């Protein structure tokens, strides 16, 4: 077990990075579920869209020669802002086109439409990139600063990339927390989540609040997409499916509809997955390896749903249309 303990700090770091990424995506699922009580299945594509916007902006900076000149912090802010904005707008458009016409119909109808939207967006992205660049497997241009590593100890090497993911995630989550809990618009979002009918009687424009929720959730997904691209450098139109499913697991794990729950669920799932990836093969003497980490996440989901469907921080789910 000597070796097992030695890699622990590195595994923890890996798990934290994954966890923050899942948490950011999970926020989109959970916020939409909060106001509409429905699983926005296409959120994983909103996430991937963010990654693609990020890579396109970086390519554009590279082609115009700006990438080497501009300050990296400025470059990062620009890429992130673009990713968040476009993803947020796309999520709003999605709500307008594929979900709002279905308000009041059974929940499964909206879910099926969302699955359709997810599939449609995957191939729409592929089509666009195929026509534009003749390939849809894109590689993020490298930023020198991000490729550095900080050797903290013999057992822990901290890449600047990981620090960036953690710092930006923390910052944006704090911002979201403030927005939802301390501003008037945030209060409106919470009111709609609690009871849309009463909220509308109180003069809250429910449809606009729903659209705004989609924007905010989508922007968080877009941010996660940009960070995903910067960290793992490879994106393709289909790379959202598995992270999306895991982020949904994280949202359910934390208690769907619950914003701190999504953050907690993401962390727990990310850490669990990192542990499974590193220790499964050590514990089973190489019989089962890291390839089972996806299975592991789904087993967590199934177990949670069966034994504690409200999640770790679950709120009482409103009795709705079944």
């Amino acid at each position: 077990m000597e070796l097992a303990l030695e890699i622990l700090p590195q595994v923890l770091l890996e798990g934290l990075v994954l966890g923050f990424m899942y948490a950011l995506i999970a926020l989109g699922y959970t916020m939409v579920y909060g106001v509409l009580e429905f699983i926005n299945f296409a959120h994983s594509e909103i996430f991937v869209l963010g990654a693609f916007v990020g890579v396109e902006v970086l390519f554009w900076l590279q082609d115009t020669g700006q990438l080497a000149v501009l300050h990296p912090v400025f470059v990062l802010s620009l890429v992130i802002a673009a990713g968040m904005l476009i993803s947020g707008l796309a999520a709003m458009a999605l709500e307008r086109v594929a979900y709002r016409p279905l308000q009041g119909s059974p929940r499964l109808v909206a879910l099926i439409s969302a699955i359709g939207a997810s599939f449609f967006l995957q191939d729409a992205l592929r089509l666009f990139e195929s026509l534009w660049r003749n390939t849809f497997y894109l590689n993020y241009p490298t930023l020198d600063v991000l490729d550095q590593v900080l050797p903290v100890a013999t057992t822990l090497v901290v890449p600047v990339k990981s620090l960036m993911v953690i710092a930006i995630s923390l910052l944006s989550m704090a911002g979201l927390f403030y927005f939802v809990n301390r501003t008037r618009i945030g209060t409106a979002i919470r009111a709609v989540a609690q009871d849309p009918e009463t909220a509308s009687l109180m003069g809250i424009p429910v449809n606009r609040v729903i659209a705004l929720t989609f924007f905010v959730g989508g922007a968080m997904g877009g941010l996660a997409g940009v960070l995903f691209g910067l960290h793992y450098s490879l994106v393709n139109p289909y790379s959202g499916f598995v992270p999306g499913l895991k982020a949904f697991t994280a949202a359910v794990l934390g208690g769907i509809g619950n914003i701190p729950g999504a953050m907690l669920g993401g962390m727990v799932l990310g850490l669990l997955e990192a542990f499974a990836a590193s220790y499964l093969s050590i514990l089973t003497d190489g019989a089962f390896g890291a390839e089972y980490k996806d299975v592991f996440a789904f087993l967590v989901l199934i177990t949670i749903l069966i034994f504690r469907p409200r999640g770790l921080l679950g709120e009482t789910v409103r009795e709705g249309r079944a």
Partner: protein
Amino acid sequence: MSSSLPSLGLFAYIAASSVLAFIFPQSVLAFLLVEASLLLLCYVPAPLKIKIYLAALVLLILIPFLGTFNGYYLEVAIQIGIYVALALGLNIVVGFVGLLNLGFVAFYAIGAYLWAIFGSPQANEFIRGGFFPLSANWFFLFLIFSIVVGALTGTLLGLPVLRLRGDYLAIVTLGFAEVVRALVNNLDKPINITNGPKGISPIVKPPLFFKPWLQFLGLEIADSTLYPLYFYFLILVMALLIILITRRLEDSRVGRAWKAIREDELAASAMGVPVVRMKLFAFAVGASFASAVGVLFAAKQVFINPESFTFMESIGVLAMVILGGMGSIPGAILGATGVTILNLQLLKGLSLWLNGLRQSGAELTLPLLGSYSLSQLPAQFEPAKYERMVFGLILILMMIFRPQGILPPRRNR
């Protein structure tokens, strides 16, 4: 004798379209016309007896006959049969009971791997003695066995998850399918059961038990032409059986209980419908259909790997059920046929046509936009590769504009 006019018209249409397909054996359009005759049969007001005779004529004689000239026709027909059977299975779960099962492909994979493992040398990896591959005669036994295994796994999955609410159920079944796929993908170690991503081959084909009879009749047909015909008739029989079973189930007490659960679960349980047992039964029936079709699929393909059992397959079958109309047997058949033809014939045809244009390098002159050389069309742009977009559009558009589907089920009042 005015009532015989539609029948005559139908007959004339079938004759004309099959002559066309016979003259142009490579034409997608001609074969589509033949296929359309079956759809026409449903709508033309003619006596039922005549319709059945005409359908039998098309299914039993015309399509196999045309298929011997262009093997691709037969391949398309077999694929349609497979998807009709799958769609009917999913239709029970989604359409009759209203449970959204996004992991339907898992049961299909289980059936396929069941025969693939034992009907190939693969099983020697973990059972000593060199018994494998099993001889072709075991095929039909495994077909029955797969029904049992499918029903069992369906029940096993159903037991814990059926208490979940609709959308959670959907995600858990999706997770289940991904777990099955990951297992199939990775169980090449520590014991090699599924051979992992490399897949399994060669898989034994079903037995040609009727060959002596053919020889008795003086027919000498090479195995390579016989097998596609054989698979065609096998899947035809299987699909017809499934249609028959589903119809009988739909009109039975069980079917009424299913629909009662779909309309209002609480009310159904108050009326004494054993909700959980009925849901489990639906899961088991759907799963056993899929699993049996899987066995046939494995035998037909000779080679299978995990790539054939992705989430996209589940969504494809779901799109078929939804396009046709949830809970409607004719709808499921129409949806499966339509989507398969769209994928295999129309989109592929379009791809080939675009490729032809690209190679011809013709100039396209548009007013105002100037001219554009078609050879510059990006090679990535191939409609046949955009199945997901098609499925996605079907799902969204149907949900928004016609959630009940093209052929909605008739409600008994």
